[in-house]
């Protein structure tokens, strides 16, 4: 069977969808398996006593605080769902900010012309 050229470029829309799908897969399936050890800063903080100076986060009681969805008992699913929520919200907020920034600059330009 002759396949269409393998070198055909992945379309832009397909690229974005594939990238988002990869982010969601990493967040849902892989993040629950991530190392639970303290990260570099936390490790240093523990070792040097800095950790004692830390104070509670004001939003520690939030519904997704600590990358765990309240009310979901299964740890893997709880973390995975938190990851999916984070990916979706981050995509929406970052995309939204960029849209606003782009529009602001365009309207700014239009206004600048008549003056």
């Amino acid at each position: 069977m002759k396949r269409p050229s393998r070198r055909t470029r992945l379309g832009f829309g397909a690229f974005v969808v594939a990238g988002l799908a990869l982010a969601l897969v990493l967040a849902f399936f892989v993040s629950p398996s991530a190392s639970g050890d303290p990260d570099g800063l936390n490790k240093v903080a523990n070792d040097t006593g800095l950790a004692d100076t830390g104070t509670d986060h004001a939003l520690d009681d939030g519904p997704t605080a600590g990358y765990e969805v309240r009310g979901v008992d299964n740890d893997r699913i709880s973390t995975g769902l938190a990851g999916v929520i984070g990916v979706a919200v981050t995509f929406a907020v970052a995309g939204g900010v960029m849209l606003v920034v782009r529009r602001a600059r365009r309207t700014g330009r239009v206004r600048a012309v008549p003056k």
Partner: protein
Amino acid sequence: MHIPDGFIDGTTSAGAAAVAAGGLGASLRRAGEVLDERRVPLAGLVAAFVFAVQMLNFPVASGTSGHLLGGALAAVLVGPAVGAVCVSVVLGVQALLFADGGLSALGLNVINMALLTTLGGYAIFIVVRRLLPRGPSSLALASGIAAAVSVVISALAFTVEYAVGGTGTASVSTVAAAMVGVHVLIGVGEGVITGLVVGAVLATRPDLVWGARDLALDLAPTASVPERVAP
């Protein structure tokens, strides 16, 4: 690498918030200038991807993990200004939704993980690129090296902030040595992952890589690429 509340005193944190706001404002202005239709969803994708990979802590030494900061990666993919905004959004979502990174430390975290890694990382990327032969693999290598160094820059920035307003009793030199030591290891991981991701995007859609704009222009007129897609 997310600084919690309390590590750095209020005055220093507030000053850092002002600096971060200024840097973010400048990045937003610059982002408005360079954003075209396609870079809007692309920026959203980069931010979402950075969020996802920041969850993937990998072990670096006994009892220690690290995760990608993603600033250098974002800068190479969508440019330093748009990248800085992307990582700032990630940090904001983490602090507000997931209680990761103190609210009072948000300015510090934006400086360390969003501004320095993107702007500093991109500067290093440019310099390293000039030292290497032209081509996609050099781009991926330069991205990896920039990413690795950006993690150490970020660790040093924390050390400076600790020196200015740290509330702990440990000496600055102790903190500096520990931070740099651990983050050199994490930086290696960041560099490898960044190089692989940039390489993968270059293999798929090199035209979408901000740091490869000139390369894509070089490739376009040559016969090799159009010939392959010609019927």
